[in-house]
Structure formats: C-alpha cells, structure tokens
C-alpha cells in the first residue's frame, strides 16, 4: 500500500513535470513580452468569438429544424425575358 502510494506520487510528479512542460513552453513563447501577449489576446478574442457564434448558430438550428426559409421547397418563379 505504501509502495503503491509512493509509485502514484512519483508518476503524478513526473506527469506534472511532463504536462507542465507544455504550459511552461507556451508561457515562454507568449508571455515574455506584453506586445506579444496582447496580440495573442486580440487574436484569441477574434477566433473565440467566431467559434462561439458558430456553435450557438448550430445549436439554434438544431433546435429549430425545418423552420428556416431555406427549408421551404423552392418557390416556382417564371424567369422569362
């Protein structure tokens, strides 16, 4: 039991070091200069807004299947010149 606990602790700390490396790496790239960080935030806000818009749009349509104008079978029009 003690050995298992010790092994778990060892793997946890190892994983933390390994997984923490990703965050630390990103930190080193993005958060050294404030100009880079602010650019990252603006870009992230733009991308995030688009993602959220798309997600909510899809959710709306999923919730309102078949009720859109586009879902009506095409109206007949006489196109003559």
């Amino acid at each position, binding site marked *: 039991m003690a050995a298992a606990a010790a092994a778990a602790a060892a793997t946890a700390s190892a994983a933390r070091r390994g997984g923490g490396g990703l965050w630390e790496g990103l930190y080193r790239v993005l958060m050294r200069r404030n100009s880079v960080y602010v650019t990252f935030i603006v870009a992230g806000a733009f991308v995030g807004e688009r993602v959220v818009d798309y997600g909510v749009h899809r959710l709306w349509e999923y919730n309102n299947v078949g009720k859109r104008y586009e879902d009506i079978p095409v109206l007949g*029009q*006489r196109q003559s010149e």
Partner: protein
Amino acid sequence: MLRALFLRHFISTSAIYVNLVMFEALEISIGGNDAEARRKRTIWALMAADVRRLCLLLEESCTRSGGLAHLRRFRVSVHLSNTSRWGCKRLITAYSIDFPGYASETLVPRHQDLGLADLPATVAAVKNPTSKITYDEHNHERYPPGDPSKRAFAYFVLTGGRFVYASLLRLLILKLVLSMSPSKDVLALASLEVDLSNIALGSTVTVKWRGKPVFIRRRTEQDIKLANTVDISSLRDPQVDADRVKNPEWLVVVGVCTHLGCIPLPNAGDFGGWFCPCHGSHYDISGRIRRGPAPFNLEVPQYSFLDENKLLIG
C-alpha cells in the same frame, strides 16, 4: 560524547531585551585522550553548563513572577567561533523553553517566549520575523517548497477570461461609435446620391432609400421603344412612359409591389420588366402593371440629376 551547545554568553545585570534564538541541537564528539582533546572537552562542558544555567534562570524567573507579565529580560550575546580548533564552523544551539500553561498549538508564531508580552501580537510579529512560517492548510493544500509551480496554467486560465474581456471591449466601442450614426427619423426623410457612371447599358441597380429598394435601370433603345409601343388604354393604370421618366435612358422606380409590398424580381415576367413572386404581378419595362393582382404601377420617387452621372433621389 558531549551534547554541547557552543555559544558563549554572558548575563548582564541590567534589564535589557532577550533574543533567545532557537536552533537545532548539535552533537559534538571529541574523542582522544591527549591534552588538546581534554581541554576541548572541558571548555565544551563549561559552555553547556553555562547555557543550561541561563535557561534555568529564565524558567525560574518566569514561574516566580507567575507568568509572562514581569519576565525579567536578559541579554544574551553570542560569539561565533569560526576557527577550526572547535571543529565546527556554524553556530547551532538548541534549547527551547516551555512555559507552563501554554499548551495549545497555533498557526501564528507565538513570541511570548521572547518576553514581549506588552506588545500586541501584530507588532511583535513584525518586529520578530521568523523563517518558521506555518501555513493554514485546512482549506487548501500547499505545494511543498521546491515543487514546480502552476504559474503557467494559472496565467492561461486568466488569459481565457481576457479573451472575453477583449470581445466585450470591441462590442462597447462599436456600440459607442455606431450610436453616432443617423437615427431612424433622420433616415426616414433622407436623400440619397447615386453614382450612375458604373451602370452598364441594360442593367439594373438596386439602392436603399428611406428603407425601401429603388430600382435604377439604364434602358437600351430597344427597351424605350418597347415601353412606348403600348396601348395606353389597355393598361390598368394608364400612364405614358414619358410621364414616368425625366430621361428616357434612366428609369427610377421604387421596388415595392403595389399589391401587398413584396419586392419584384428584375428581368422576370412576360413583359420584359419585373415579376413579383408573391402573387404573380408582371410589370413592364416602364414599371407599369400589366398582369396580376397589383392595382398601380411601380411608384416613381422624386428625383433629379445633379450632373451627368449623379442622381439625387428624394
């Protein structure tokens, strides 16, 4: 084997403040039976005895005075012996004084044992910094010292929040700036200038004027001839083409069906003009109703030509 405390001390008779520092115990073993070793052992023993006597004195005075209120203060000055003769280069002592009646363990380092009872605890804490900090781990566990911190992850969580704030800021700026654009009542009586230079012969352009679409068609000779070769009496709403246009080359009509308000489609219908898909009204190349349920021709708005290529509607 000597259990030794190697600080020299002296007790001054005047009452000054004590700063008894707590360290760890050191076990010093001085073996050998030569004169040097014997001398060392004697001196160590004397030192140890001195400190023990000092501490006994403090204890005694404490119990005698019945508590911390009148603890006599002693000065303990410490000399560091740094030479190799003593075999140890660091100053380490160990003695802690347990005062009666104070058995509870608290998080705050209690400084009563240093004899500072008349100061409030906050002042005493500020004046006596200690490295032995106890953290309250009742609610949150503390990373042990030396653990790699979660700084980067925490910062990225905060960055997520800042994405939202940036989006909000953009929205606020847009709202503030666009609130200065003309309001609906102003637009309801507005005029519109249209540049006609880019409209090809025979093509139709739709512009938004007072919320309504306006069709501007640059008619060909053929269109004009077609518009004029209609029997006026057969029209539901008889109007001569010349009455509807200022310049026969340019037809300007409001693109709202006079039946129920749909927008007719250009280049559709049987009469070379517009066709309304809602109920099937046909308009000709002059915008007059020919077939279908609409009662009137397409409305001609007030317009004028500012110069050769500019049209002012309204």
